[in-house]
């Protein structure tokens, strides 16, 4: 349900925008209220807290005719609106030295739109009691799977986002939900301890739990199998990715490089490759809050721009990037609904949403059969972008060895994929007909500004350096 609090402040925000519009050519206010809970049940501790994404507050954005300024604040009321107006004017004021040394940026288009958007939870809403009982059941089943499971965590996290965006011509509200169930079993043999992970991420309590419950034994067995894992012999191998690793490649290898605030700063190599070949002709890549239903699906972004589905790569050719509104104004392009903030306390940047490769026509079994010696890589650990120089580092939790088209039973962990992005993307030779987007990720810009994202796609066959 849309936040009663934001609803109660809606008219005050309109009033403040009207006052600021008397002074500035453009003014807008974004209000954000994210609530929800995180429930953790482990072998030793149970805890309940507010969701990590929790926030409630506002940010005012103004254009002084030369640059954009912002002021973040926690509350607005009839008593404080006068003081707040003065505070915004005072705290965002720039002296001549700063004001005369600015980028060339125009005023926001501010096209008229008034709309309320709503995406409720699908199916039954579970009570905290039901959630804890189900998490405990998952935990008990995981422990009973094997004595080697020494420790286990099951986590439920749910967040409900309400946002309002008001400017002179725009008056938007939205409300949507998302949730994750996560299982992390740790297997132990003496001093050797290994973990695995399973995530159910849907806009449904039942589906999120069911996914983990259906994959529980497989997840526990993976942790046990990892006890006998070794480090890989470093080298260049044929690989097959699972959808999480496919998503990691889409996100880290290429997605960050097409964030167009990087174009503005001359930080993205991809800006020189528009309409050029960057990947195998089998590759199609999308990003967009409306591209699929997942963790980063919203109706409008933090600039008040409606959600898009952006086709980034088509048949291996780079089509376009994604952008927030201020970057688009500097580049003379259209914003793509990718202006996102970590919270109302932080600046909006161009950020990915749901990023994925499209599915192809190959069967996974044929892909495995085609490998003479290589690895199938599983489960994203982390990755790091390098948009200017297109180096790639993707860390996979583990890999399974394939020889002469069959799994040998040997597991290596962890596995670091590295190399040059176009080499990796051009090496893609098979794309499976299966497709999955995993909606449980968090992404930073550089080393900060964390937002919820999803990524995924089909299985890919490629070739790259593993260590």
């Amino acid at each position, binding site marked *: 349900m849309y936040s009663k609090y934001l609803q109660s402040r809606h008219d005050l925000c309109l009033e403040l925008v009207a006052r600021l519009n008397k002074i500035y050519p453009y003014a807008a206010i974004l209000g954000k209220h994210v609530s929800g809970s995180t429930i953790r049940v482990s072998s030793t501790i149970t*805890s309940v807290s507010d969701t990590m994404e929790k926030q409630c507050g506002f940010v005012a954005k103004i254009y002084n005719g030369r640059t954009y300024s912002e002021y973040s604040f926690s509350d607005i009321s009839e008593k404080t609106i006068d003081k707040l107006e003065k505070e915004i004017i005072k705290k965002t004021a720039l002296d001549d030295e700063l004001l005369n040394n600015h980028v060339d940026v125009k005023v926001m288009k501010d096209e008229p739109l008034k709309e309320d958007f709503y995406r409720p939870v699908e199916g039954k809403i579970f009570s905290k009691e039901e959630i804890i009982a189900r998490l405990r059941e998952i935990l008990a089943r995981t422990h009973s799977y094997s004595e080697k499971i020494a420790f286990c965590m099951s986590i439920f996290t749910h967040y409900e986002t309400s946002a309002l965006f008001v400017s002179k011509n725009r008056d938007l509200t939205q409300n949507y939900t998302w949730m994750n169930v996560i299982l992390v079993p740790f297997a132990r043999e003496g001093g050797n301890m290994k973990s695995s992970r399973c995530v159910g991420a849907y806009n449904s309590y039942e589906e999120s739990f069911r996914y983990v419950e259906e994959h529980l034994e497989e997840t526990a067995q993976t942790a046990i199998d990892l006890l006998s894992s070794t480090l890989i012999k470093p080298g260049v191998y044929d690989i097959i990715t699972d959808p999480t690793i496919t998503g990691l490649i889409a996100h880290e290898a290429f997605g960050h490089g097409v964030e167009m605030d990087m174009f503005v700063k001359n930080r993205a190599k991809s800006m020189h490759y528009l309409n050029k070949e960057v990947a195998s002709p089998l590759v199609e890549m999308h990003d967009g809050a409306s591209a699929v239903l997942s963790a980063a699906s919203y109706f409008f972004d933090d600039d008040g721009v409606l959600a898009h589905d952006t086709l980034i790569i088509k048949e291996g050719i780079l089509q376009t990037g994604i952008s927030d509104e201020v970057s688009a104004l500097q580049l003379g392009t259209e914003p793509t609904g990718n202006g996102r903030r970590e919270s109302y306390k932080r600046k909006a940047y161009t950020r990915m949403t749901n990023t994925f490769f499209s599915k192809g026509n190959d069967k996974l079994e044929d892909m495995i059969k085609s490998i003479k010696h290589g690895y199938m890589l599983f489960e994203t650990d982390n990755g790091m972008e390098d948009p200017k120089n297109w180096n790639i580092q993707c860390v996979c939790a583990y890999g399974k060895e394939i020889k002469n088209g069959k799994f040998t039973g040997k597991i290596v962990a*962890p596995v670091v994929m590295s190399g040059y992005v176009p080499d990796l993307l051009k090496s893609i030779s098979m794309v499976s007909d299966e497709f999955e987007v995993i909606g449980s990720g968090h992404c930073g810009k550089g080393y900060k500004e964390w937002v919820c994202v999803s990524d995924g796609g089909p299985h890919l066959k490629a070739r790259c350096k593993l260590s």
Partner: protein
Amino acid sequence: MKKLLRVLNKSKGVSAYKINVKETESCELFYVGKKLETNRASNVIDYEVTIYVDKDEQRGNASFTYYPYMDEKEIKEKIADAIFSAGFTLNKFYELPSPTEVEIKEPETNLNKKSFNKLIKAVEKAVFKADKYHDGYLSATEIFLYKIKSRIVNSKGVDISYLTYQGNIETIPSWRRKGEEVEVYNMSKFSSFDPKEIAKEIKEVLLLAKDRSRAKKLNVKRLPENVKIIIQDEEVEQVFRDFAMDLNYSLIYQKMNLKNVGDNLQGEDVSGDKLNLKAVPNYPNAMNSCPVDDDGVVLKEVELVKDGVALNTFGPYRFGYYLGVEKPTGNLPVMVVKEGKKTLEEMERTPYIRCIRFSGMQLDHHSGFIGGEVRLGIYFDGKKTYPVTGFSIAGHFDKIKGKIVYSQETATRPGYHGPKYLELPDMAIV
């Protein structure tokens, strides 16, 4: 806050409570090249309330966010929901910390001597003073100044407030060479402003970008035998944090630690420098310094490791209580490690690769994997040095932790003071 306390103190079913308040003022500038794109300011406040419910010698807890807009009815609803939740989270009983006599001093910083609007211009000047190269420049810069007032209140009488000041500068130094451009990433964090230090650091990172522009792909097949790996700064801190992990109450209580007090954390055969490690509340210009932790525990220095042998444990009050520790240390924010005897110059007399920028070094505590892709390194083949790129390193931490050599040079980071460089043996280079 008064309203919240009044309702909390009247609430039946609340056995204890804790409130953490963080009030943040910020001043921020965002540049594209040397031109201002956006300026920001903020004045925000966050309240985190934890309530505790005791039942059958057990204690449950649940936390919620309080917003100043809430009226008494809304606060009561939040508390009732938290009591309900806490009833499902009954864990082993633990006390909250009691008040301790402590004098909280004003932080030693110059960030409180001028208004942020004036100060941020001085920071901006120091940053761009170093941006003076024909082929090198800062493609993007973000400057943040924060004043943070933290307060911890609990139902046992703890009520402590303290101020911290922080500065962050994110820069992207770039360098043009033969029609191509490269960049490196840099984040400076400080609790006191020294324009000369900032200008020096920016100059250094611009020259790193120059090195990266000249860097050639490392030919790993032509490396001399026994070429050593040297890591620095952030990755050095990561290594020492991994050593300390097994001594944290939380890991010990959950039986996830691999070593115990009395064990030699470096293994039996130590040929490298011996580890001496302390956890401390504050260290000059270590930005994470603070006098108390989030539970209200007044922090004091603890010697954790002496000559490689684990002496003490540390960590959150609750897990310390569970383990029967008489005076749990609380979460100490800064680690101090004793430096080694060898200088960088001595380390670099024989063939080496010094890894200057990783994509992100991985160090997995349980698998022992250490390694990652190196974006910029300096390679010395015994005769000449070259900037190199396009390679990865990999090793097994358990097998090398007794052989690591610590530098005499030290570095201070937000949560660390100690050796600036480490010499890692037996690493695969691919």
